[in-house]
């Protein structure tokens, strides 16, 4: 009897964190169901669950909505996890792949590919763009890190200013490329800037799955060491953590996540800032839970945002990047105020 009550009492059976993860998973299922049902042709959720679908509905589902839902979930998860990882790496809750220039590094590389390499067909082209974007974000990470090491610390101000500089440089590069590109390339470039999961097809999903899932697993495998790194690099060393290796892994995984996201969906901002923050507020900063919870919550958020951006201006649709920036911008300002109120200077 005693063991039974122990087993059933929620605090023993499921910690708060595990319950939060379960809640997120159910939210993801709901978000996917709602996303699958909404659109120009509505499919009732009950029919979705029971599988009672007409042939046209099935085609809409497998051909259009499912790949889009998969892609938004994967990219949302990837961006949220990259935010969490970068924040841990820089020991700084204000890091976001968009703000500190990692995304624009990827963006510049994609623009270079579009204008100079032309487009390769199918999966090969998608992988090509992804690799270029990965290298672009890796270069940006490397740049930020090298400068941070030179000055010897990772202050918020410093990191954000570094991001401003990298963003400006990348923007100048993309602007120049737009200037020399032809009409078709120009259209492709400007679509990229806005960020959208529209037009997602199964090849994109395949590319996303094969890159994002391993990258998230790599981060998860390093999550305990990432906790220790928060104490400081010397402390991590004293505890026997190979901090150089952990940092390398984190940067690699982040660059993969951001790179493939930018290559497949363009610039979708602020997911990496908002999601880890909400997760920390709920279950604390332990990376062993922060990483998986951010992945799932990012998937929920971007899937929900994409559904809203599809429905809100029907029959057309708004690029989801506009919506995430609309929510994320004020959130970032609020964080800045919270971070710096009561301090003298920045």
């Amino acid at each position, binding site marked *: 009897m005693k063991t039974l009550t122990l087993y059933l009492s929620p605090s023993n059976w499921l910690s708060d964190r595990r319950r939060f993860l379960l809640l997120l998973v159910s939210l993801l299922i709901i978000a996917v169901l709602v996303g699958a049902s909404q659109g120009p042709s509505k499919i009732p959720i009950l029919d979705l669950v029971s599988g009672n679908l007409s042939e046209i509905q099935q085609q809409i589902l497998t051909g259009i909505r499912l790949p889009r839902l998969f892609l938004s979930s994967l990219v949302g998860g990837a961006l949220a996890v990259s935010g969490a990882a970068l924040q*841990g790496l820089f*020991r700084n809750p204000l890091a976001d792949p968009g703000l500190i220039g990692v995304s624009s590094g990827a963006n510049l590389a994609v623009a270079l590919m579009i204008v100079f390499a032309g487009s390769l067909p199918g999966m090969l082209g998608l992988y090509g763009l992804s690799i270029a974007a990965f290298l672009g974000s890796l270069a940006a990470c490397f740049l930020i890190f090298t400068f941070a090491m030179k000055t010897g610390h990772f202050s918020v101000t410093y990191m954000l200013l570094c991001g401003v500089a990298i963003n400006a440089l990348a923007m100048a590069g993309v602007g120049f490329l737009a200037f020399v590109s032809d009409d078709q390339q120009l259209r492709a470039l400007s679509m990229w800037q806005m960020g959208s999961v529209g037009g997602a097809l199964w090849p994109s999903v395949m590319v996303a799955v094969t890159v994002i899932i391993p990258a998230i697993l790599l981060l998860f495998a390093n999550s305990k060491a990432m*906790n220790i790194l928060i*104490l*400081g690099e*010397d402390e991590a060393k*004293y*505890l026997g953590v190979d901090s150089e290796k952990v940092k390398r892994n984190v940067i690699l995984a982040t660059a993969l996540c951001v790179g493939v996201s930018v290559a497949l969906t363009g610039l979708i901002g602020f997911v990496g800032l908002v999601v880890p923050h909400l997760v*920390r507020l709920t279950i*604390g900063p332990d990376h062993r839970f922060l990483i998986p919870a951010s992945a799932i919550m990012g998937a929920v958020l971007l899937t929900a945002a994409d559904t809203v951006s599809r429905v809100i201006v029907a029959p057309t649709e708004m690029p989801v990047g506009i919506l995430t920036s609309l929510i994320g911008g004020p959130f970032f300002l609020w964080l800045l105020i919270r971070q710096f109120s009561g301090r003298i200077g920045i």
Partner: protein
Amino acid sequence: MIEIDRLSLELKGHSILKNISAGIDKGSFTAILGPNGAGKSTFMKCLTGSEKGFTGTVRLDGKKLSDYGLKEMASKRAVLSQRFQVEFPFTVEEVITMGRYDKDLGTTVKRQEQILEEVLASVDAIHLRNRIFPSLSGGEQQRVQLARVLAQIWGEEERYLFLDEPTSALDLKHQVAVLKLVRQLCYDKGYTIIAVLHDLNLAKAVSDHVILLKNGGLYASGSTNSLLSPRYINTTYGIELEELKDPETGVSYLFHKDFYT
């Protein structure tokens, strides 16, 4: 046993440590003393394996520091740094558990809980267990960090414990309590304590040996009784201290003459 042989360090063209040779006996309490900027913290970083760019050799138990792996070092010594900043809202319990990184696999949950409770109790921080670390006061943070550092080597014997100004943020009561605690670990568990200290009378009370640094060089090294006297201290720090002996206990204190003349 730590043997330091002609240790020198240059950073960005500046000579930080100059040709230091000294020995630290196993199971002793060694205080590192000296004026600001004498190189105390850097000297300690060389001994802990954090600063590797030095010339000369440092041997820990007969083996060169450069021959140790990270994990092997982590099982031999623990280090309390002077500054720590935790930007994320980890709880005190989580911070202390980090000290058990890599060690929890071999211990039962019951033992982990026991270690957590013991280290918390040892620094008078049981009541802080569920608090958010960054919200604590400086002194509380320092005690919790000490508990984390102790957790790394808790229950083991003959470990090395490096402490960089372990009492800098503590009130008088906790200064005494913390130094008594590490002194006790030195006696009971055979720990070798190496601590950068500022309060000379506290150093006099707890340490066996003293390493006096000045301008990056070794000024003197030897037993506490012989070195912590006005003769050495006044020239190291450039001050005027006088020694006063309590006739009843025979204990002597150092005090600033300037204030009383």
